[in-house]
């Protein structure tokens, strides 16, 4: 329902609720409960009280007949209420109303023939008409209330799901706290001192976070998409390290649609910064290349740092890279990390080319 709309929505006149029925999934999610014992007790007490008053006012001769009718009405109303409880929507409500009207009409017809006395007939008719008006109203309220309850539950469920999903993505995106807080430290200082470097750094950090969060949604991701995150990451590091970092991304357009396990390129670049550039007194240079040849894509990250230390052994990070590559490209995929003859390291991944469109 759009409250901001200026025109009157006449279809809302007799049922101001949602216009689409709850789907089976929604009902299963939010409407699986039965009415609470308290609710049933309250309803029963009310019905008993009304019945007591009605029978007190009714002509003594008609008490038996009226009791039968009221019991019938209560049973019918309970059955309808139970159905509306399970599926509170305007269609079942309309059907219930029509059904009730039919029952009332039949009862009115019976009254005409079975109660000869004019005054008694009038009294019983009045009572039945009052009850007959009360029941649809109660059903109407029940439906609206129940529909609102289900909607609130669905909304709450959606929000909770979103929060959990966000937490999961943040957790898997592995935005390194050290990276984040060091960047924030620079940002804070530049904002405080009104330094012009603050705005581009904030833009790069935002771009990085935005690009990183959806990275891990899918089992495979086009290299071009991940390169966006890599660029933003390098921009952030560039702002922080200044002249100590130089970088270059040189990826063939043909290699950009290639599907990769998400986060690999970013991990390789992060490693190059952490081990190849940051420990160097004079900083360093990072090159990311991407090439397509003979159905195989190769991405390589090179730095000009100190190379591999003697006695270097593969850590869990690299084992993880190998595993994910094997999962995506089988035996044809691979990862190598070598010391470059001219100094520094070169990490390369290669796997059979597969593009978005073919999957």
């Amino acid at each position, binding site marked *: 329902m759009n409250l901001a709309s200026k025109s009157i929505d006449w279809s809302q006149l007799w049922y101001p609720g949602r216009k689409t029925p709850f789907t089976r999934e929604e009902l299963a999610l939010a409407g699986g409960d039965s009415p609470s014992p308290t609710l049933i007790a309250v309803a029963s007490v009310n019905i008993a009280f009304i019945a007591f008053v009605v029978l007190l006012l009714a002509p003594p001769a008609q008490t038996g007949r009226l009791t039968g009718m009221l019991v019938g009405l209560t049973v019918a109303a309970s059955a309808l209420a139970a159905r509306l409880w399970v599926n509170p929507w305007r269609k079942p409500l309309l059907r219930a109303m029509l059904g009730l009207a039919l029952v009332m009409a039949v009862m009115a017809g019976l009254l005409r023939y079975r109660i000869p006395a004019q005054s008694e007939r009038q009294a019983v008719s009045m009572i039945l008409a009052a009850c007959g008006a009360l029941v649809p109203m109660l059903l109407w309220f029940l439906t609206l209330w129940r529909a609102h309850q289900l909607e609130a539950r669905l909304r709450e469920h959606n929000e909770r799901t979103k929060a959990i999903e966000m937490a999961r993505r943040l957790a898997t995106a592995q935005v*390194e*706290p*050290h990276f*984040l*807080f*060091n960047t*924030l*430290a*620079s*940002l*804070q*200082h*530049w904002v*405080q*001192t009104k*330094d012009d*470097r603050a705005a581009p750094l904030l833009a790069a950090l935002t771009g990085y976070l935005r690009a990183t969060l959806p990275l891990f949604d899918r089992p495979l991701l086009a290299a071009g998409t991940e390169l966006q995150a890599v660029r933003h990451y390098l921009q952030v590091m560039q702002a*922080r*390290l*200044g002249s*100590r970092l130089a970088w270059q991304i040189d990826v063939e357009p043909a290699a950009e649609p290639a599907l990769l396990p998400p986060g690999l390129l970013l991990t390789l670049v992060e490693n190059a910064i952490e081990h190849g550039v*940051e*420990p*160097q*007194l004079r900083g360093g240079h990072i090159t990311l290349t991407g090439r397509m040849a003979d159905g195989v894509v190769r991405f390589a990250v090179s730095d000009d740092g*100190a190379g591999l*230390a*003697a*006695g270097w052994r593969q850590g869990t990070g690299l084992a993880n890279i190998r595993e994910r590559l094997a999962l995506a490209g089988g035996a044809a995929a691979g990862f190598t990390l070598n010391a470059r003859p001219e100094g520094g390291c070169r990490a390369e991944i290669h796997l059979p080319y597969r593009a978005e469109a073919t999957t």
Partner: protein
Amino acid sequence: MTTALVADDEEAPREQLLAALRQAWPELQIVATADNGVDAWDAFLEHEPDLCFLDIRMPGLSGIDVARRIGGKAPVVFATAYGDHALAAFDAGAVDYLLKPVEAERLAQAIERLRARLQPAAPSNGELQALLERLATTQARRAPLSVLQASVGREVRLIRCDEVIYFESDARYTRVVHEGGDALIRTPLKELLAQLDEQLFWQVHRSVIVNHRHVAAAVRVDEGHMHLTLRGRPETLPVSRHFQGLFKGQ
């Protein structure tokens, strides 16, 4: 007047800490700033500040390496971003640390403690030294340099590090005195220090590193002055005050 050294490899966090210090402790005189561990250590030897603020992750020497070399001669406060495993050790309360970006309130607290420690009757910190030694061993460390390459005229001479007798700072160069003669290399002494085998090479002066196997004796000239004599060589090497503790007899 209290003097201090501030070292961080990134400009903005360093400037931020400096600004926060100026605000929270206006009388403090910053005698040196450094953007890597090598310069931080060199600046410490040059200026002998009363206290040091050191980033943990720095190129050359880490903040922990520098603190270990300072060896309790001055209180150290580490500055670090979240996520340094070393933080867990500091939680024991042995060393103070600041989280970046530095908050004014936390800095004031650290300054309070520093002032107490600057009192003459400050407790000894053998415990701290042990902690720093332990932390230093957990750091990823590169194998020490084994060969030096010195250009002499048209040739490049290879000098095995274990044949070096001592290194001496010579303007922008480093003089390498080894068993087969001497040579000049371009790497500054302070950078070389971070790459040498600590077991073999001892720094004894801001501008001298000696291979301890060639040291014959340490001679105390007078209060505050000391020099080393070498095996089979006529020259002596100065030992500055900071390093005289290396030679105290047993």
